[in-house]
């Protein structure tokens, strides 16, 4: 008998307890009040800022110059961008600037030390976001691989303000995650941190020290 058969056999032989109906999780989430996009954006911003992320409100036309400006201020030299993404193209078409763009085109295994040691920052898009916890949702793929949001010390994220859900449950049901999960889905709620030394909070434990969100509003820029 295999371990599998033994374990399942013991579980199946155990006395049945009272039957338990499938818990109605959706009903609980349905009780949260419905908010408009602007309110969700405000809540998202407040929550992720409380977790030490920077949020800059901008729009589809202005974000490239804003990103370049922030990068210069922070003294960042090499920016990792995705391969063939719209945002990489937009940055590439910007007039003269200091930032050197590095494109993630090769398997990580072939340029790992370069990736770990010589990249100052990365730019990825967020698929969507969550207001209740101030979280970004990323589905890394071939054009924006998973290590972009993890290895470089500074992570810029482009987020369309129209894609902010109320909570994680709304995100996964509205976007129908359960029908087709990607190999890796990420929910990121701030820069990397630890409180393992005497409960003292420190940022940049193993992932990015800084998380910078470029929150793009549609139409007129708010505020």
């Amino acid at each position, binding site marked *: 008998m295999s371990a599998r058969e033994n*374990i399942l056999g*013991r579980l199946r032989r155990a006395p049945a307890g009272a039957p*338990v109906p499938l*818990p109605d999780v959706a009903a609980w989430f349905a009780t949260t009040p419905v908010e408009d996009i602007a309110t969700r954006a405000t809540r998202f911003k407040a929550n992720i800022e409380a977790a030490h992320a920077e949020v800059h409100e901008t729009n589809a036309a202005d974000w490239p110059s804003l990103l370049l400006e922030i990068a210069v201020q922070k003294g960042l030299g090499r920016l990792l961008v995705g391969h063939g993404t719209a945002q990489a193209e937009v940055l590439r078409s910007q007039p003269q600037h200091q930032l050197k763009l590095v494109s993630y085109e090769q398997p990580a295994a072939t340029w*790992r030390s370069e990736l770990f040691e010589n990249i100052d920052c990365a730019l990825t898009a967020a698929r969507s976001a969550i207001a209740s916890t101030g979280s970004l949702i990323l589905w890394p793929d071939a054009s924006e691989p998973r290590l972009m949001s993890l290895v470089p010390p500074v992570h810029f994220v482009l987020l369309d303000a129209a894609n902010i859900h109320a909570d994680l449950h709304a995100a*996964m049901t509205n976007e129908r995650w359960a029908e087709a999960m990607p190999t890796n889905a990420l929910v990121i709620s701030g820069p990397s941190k630890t409180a393992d*030394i*005497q409960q003292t909070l420190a940022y940049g*434990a193993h992932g990015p020290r800084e998380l910078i969100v470029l929150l793009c509003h549609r139409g007129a820029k708010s505020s």
Partner: protein
Amino acid sequence: MSQNQTVHFHPAEGFAERSRAAVNDAHLRRSFRGAMDFLQAKRLSQFPDADELSALRDLGKAIRLHALANLPDLLEQLEAKLQANGIQVHWAETPDQANAIVLDIAHRHDAKNMVKGKSMVSEEIGLNHAMEVAGIEALETDMGEYIVQLAGEAPSHIIMPAIHKTRQQIAELFAAKVPGVAYTDNVDELIRIGRDVLRKKFAAAEIGLSGVNFAVAETGTLYLVENEGNGRMCTSVPKVHIAVTGIEKVVAKLEHVALLNILLPRSATGQAVETYQNFISGPRKPDELDGPDEVHLILLDNGRTQAYADVQLRATLQCIRCGACMNHCPVYARIGGHAYGTTYPGPIGAIISPHLLGLEATYALATASSLCGACVEVCPVRIPITDILIRLRNEAQAASAGKLRGGGRARKPLQSSIWLVWSWIYGQPWLYRIVSWLMSRGRALAPSNQGAWTRSRTPLNPAPQRLRDLLRRPASG
């Protein structure tokens, strides 16, 4: 598996001595008291609405009960979904089997270096030791776990492994053990040192090992949460990712994770959400440029089916490992995690360890409770911890071995005869009247040395007047 490489604990022996030593260690007392106060306050601040918390706990419990009620079916569904997603599934009944599976995978890849994300199950199976014996470096990468491993110790808390250490102790440890590092007790500096050392290790390791917070049967997804990013490193940089988890960690639906993760971080550390929620549903696709080529899941029993076989004790498996019960336990706060001598300390440790290690080795843990119920009040999935503690005490004292491994092993003939006589006296009113009268007259004869009781308490003396005498006295005024 001929070799037995697991580290065996005998916490029942020495538990009292270790507790006594811990209680007398002022340093340790301060570390734990400070940390517990901090964590209790933070948790409370995350649940301002008592009604909402209560509703959330009902739902959390319902989700876990549903998963357990359907456990064998859900495990089979999980396995089928994971396999369809390209994740390899292994089953292990014992720690040795689990370690052998890891070693087998490691050997197939000629691996010499393993980086580890936080995993209490890997502690439970003594994985680091098994790897070391086989010549594989298994390096802890969670900052707290890294510190504890560097010191040659075991974690003292399931969420904050290095909670027993002060900043200065960690500073001294780094200066002594990390090559080329000068003494600094600046926390940011210390974390930067750890980050630099471990970054090189992530890039060089062939295998990344992790635990699992929840495994979703519906989608074949491994769900992992963390703050540091080391878990993501371990699951996405090396070419092989091995996850180990107990068979009870499965949930039916993806949406169940959304609810449970409202309870988990708030109960655990009093934060609204962890920095990283990592949903892994397969190895990298051919066109993807990073991520592991292989993902494995090891499903471990190690006594969990024993808990499952008993309808009352099954509730133990509802646990989501948040650590709130230990953070609120007056015993844990005073003796700390190491005194328990088990992988899982505190109230959850006292109720799960008997299934993992046998009641003969662990019955003392169930006695380390005042049954105040603080753990029951905070448990996000409403495990009736105190009821289970009482049940385990009875099982340990039972006249026959019963269904639990090591049952009846705490029974002492003299002690049980004394209790027998006691219950007989208390069961006969006439006898009780005589005995209590004799006791109140003979109170001068009570010994001043009453063994363990008087080691830290004043002696017990029968009252000069029995309660019944006091009641019979006419009320004055």
